């Protein structure tokens, strides 16, 4: 099994007519993803590589029965695109676009939570989601992942997500689902959402979690792992020796309450029983040991 998506997931691409959207839409379709529709307000009736274009998400859902949407719209239009997808009736929205203003993200996160509580948003600024062999929505190169299981991956960083998939494939370890939640301030889907889903997924036996400095999402995940996870977890936090990235002034320092450094995150995770590696290779080796002992 996989989480959030599977081989039956029908996907609409908002922005399929653009250069990024058409490129990755085609790669996703070649991988085997059910790419059933694109949207463009002025290009309804046309097609991209045989995939029909509808005027909006609601019409695309009505015509195809799609349940997911993938957004390749430029940053200024993402807020509108996310709400259009939710109002159009999809249950799962993947926003790949980077550079979305934080105030837009905070707004649509809360709008979805209140008015569309059953809709899951992944991203923005994320590589997407891949369930190897079944479905690939986003910009991950499909062939760097081995299908099957028993590992689930959740990551805040794009290239490190690929690195993790690749390290496991080199060790002949399969992946049930790999979720890139993105590194923006208000991610639609959190580490905890993914950990919860992996814990409930019978085919996922262990989880690899890749974090980054900043914020307190990793600390919150550690708390969740400690209290709710029975499955083993390995982890790596990027930025152990990085200079402080974004200075948020005094108010920001208080919000984080001393959290946010790699050391604090690694300590919280280790304290929750997670096998913490010092680099991606080490985290991969730790996962190989975990898998060997399952």
């Amino acid at each position: 099994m996989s989480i959030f998506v599977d081989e039956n997931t029908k996907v609409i691409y908002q922005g399929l007519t653009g250069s990024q959207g058409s490129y990755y839409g085609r790669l996703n379709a070649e991988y085997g993803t059910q790419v059933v529709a694109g949207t463009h307000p002025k290009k309804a009736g046309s097609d991209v590589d045989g995939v029909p274009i509808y005027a909006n998400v609601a019409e695309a859902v009505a015509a195809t029965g799609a349940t997911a949407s993938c957004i390749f719209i430029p940053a200024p239009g993402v807020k509108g695109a996310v709400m259009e997808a939710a109002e159009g009736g999809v249950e799962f929205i993947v926003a790949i676009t980077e550079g979305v203003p934080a105030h837009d993200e905070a707004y649509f996160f809360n709008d979805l939570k209140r008015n569309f509580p059953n809709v899951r948003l992944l991203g923005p600024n994320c590589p997407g989601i891949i369930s190897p062999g079944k479905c690939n929505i986003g910009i991950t190169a499909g062939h760097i992942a081995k299908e099957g299981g028993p590992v689930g991956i959740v990551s805040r960083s794009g290239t490190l997500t690929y690195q993790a998939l690749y390290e496991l494939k080199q060790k002949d370890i399969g992946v049930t689902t790999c979720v890139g939640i993105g590194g923006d301030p208000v991610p639609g889907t959190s580490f905890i959402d993914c950990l919860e889903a992996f814990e409930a997924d019978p085919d996922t036996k262990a989880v690899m979690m890749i974090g980054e400095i900043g914020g307190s999402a990793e600390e919150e995940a550690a708390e969740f792992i400690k209290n709710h996870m029975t499955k083993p977890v390995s982890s790596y936090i990027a930025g152990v020796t990085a200079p402080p990235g974004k200075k948020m002034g005094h108010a920001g320092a208080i919000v984080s309450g001393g959290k946010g450094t790699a050391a604090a995150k690694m300590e919280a995770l280790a304290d929750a029983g997670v096998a913490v590696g010092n680099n991606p290779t080490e985290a991969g080796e730790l996962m190989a040991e975990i898998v060997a002992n399952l």
Partner: protein
Amino acid sequence: MDLFEHQGKEFFAQFGMPVSPGEAAFSVDDAVAAAERLGTPVMVKAQVHTGGRGKAGGVKFAADIDSVREHAGNILGLDINGHIVQRLWIEKASDIAEEYYASFTLDRSAKKHLGMLSKEGGVEIETVAEENPDAIAKIWIDPVDGLTEAACRDWVAAANLPDAAVEGTVAIMHQLYAAYTEGDADLVEINPLILTPEGNVHVLDAKVTLDGNSEFRHDDYGQYDETQPRDEREEAAHAKGLQYVGLEGSVGVIANGAGLAMSTVDVVNQVGGSPANFLDIGGGANADVMAGALEVINNDPNVKSIFINIFGGITRGEEVANGILEAMERVEIDSPIVIRLDGTNADEGREILRPKLNDKLMMEETMLDAARKSVELAS
């Protein structure tokens, strides 16, 4: 993007907030002329992107023009936490009865906006938070609702300000929230917000960080981009559109993706070296971007070796290899380069590089080995 205090005040003024009249000055003569126009007494304030100005002697009261001359001379060129003062803000001095603190920022954990208000302003708010957390009134705001009148009044009441300050503070908190949301700020902070002896609430300082991602809907934000503090290397990288942060070490680092770039800096440190920079060239690794990155790193006199760490995802290994070779033809590189190429079609890419390898261009299979090699070459 961090704003200077005076830019922050001009930004606040656009939302109707009461700030003092003042002028920016870049020399002692400028400062004196500004003070003559404003009329003494004035405050002479260092404009730097760092806190602790007062303690460092960067904020002075000047009763007359002679003092303006003296203080401006002392403050210009002053080193405050590594920031050299190059501009001043000359502002009409205010009488202060009480000092408060106010701010809005995003609480990433709650995924809501967080407002903080305290009657203990004018001091470091971290200290207040630690020693007397109850003195900070907090409000979490759902962006869909915004800051309602009732919620704002309850919040200000919770801060226990004297009656004379309540109405003025409520009004300014609405304006501050508008500046924060409509202005797409990551942080707006006033410390101190003052009550004058006449009973007026007034903005005496401004700390503003704007979200660079929102530039597309704010035509005037380019002016702030120009005043961001960058060293020479960072300026050159910024001009080329590269994500670059200068560090102190001797191993130049080029990687694709922010996570991998951070991870590369980590690994160089872990094997006993010290990175000269963080540089993310983004998803692809074409010759243009690679040449620009190599040029920036090559111009850094501290660099003794260069570690190129590329993971091919969609971009195939042979494209990466050809990009590196083409870039090396365009830029003459002084330091030896160590390449680690992995991911999609890594073998094909390595085959392209192999015949070109020599003591100036080396290749290692893993990230750790490549880090060790580049550190060895730099020492």
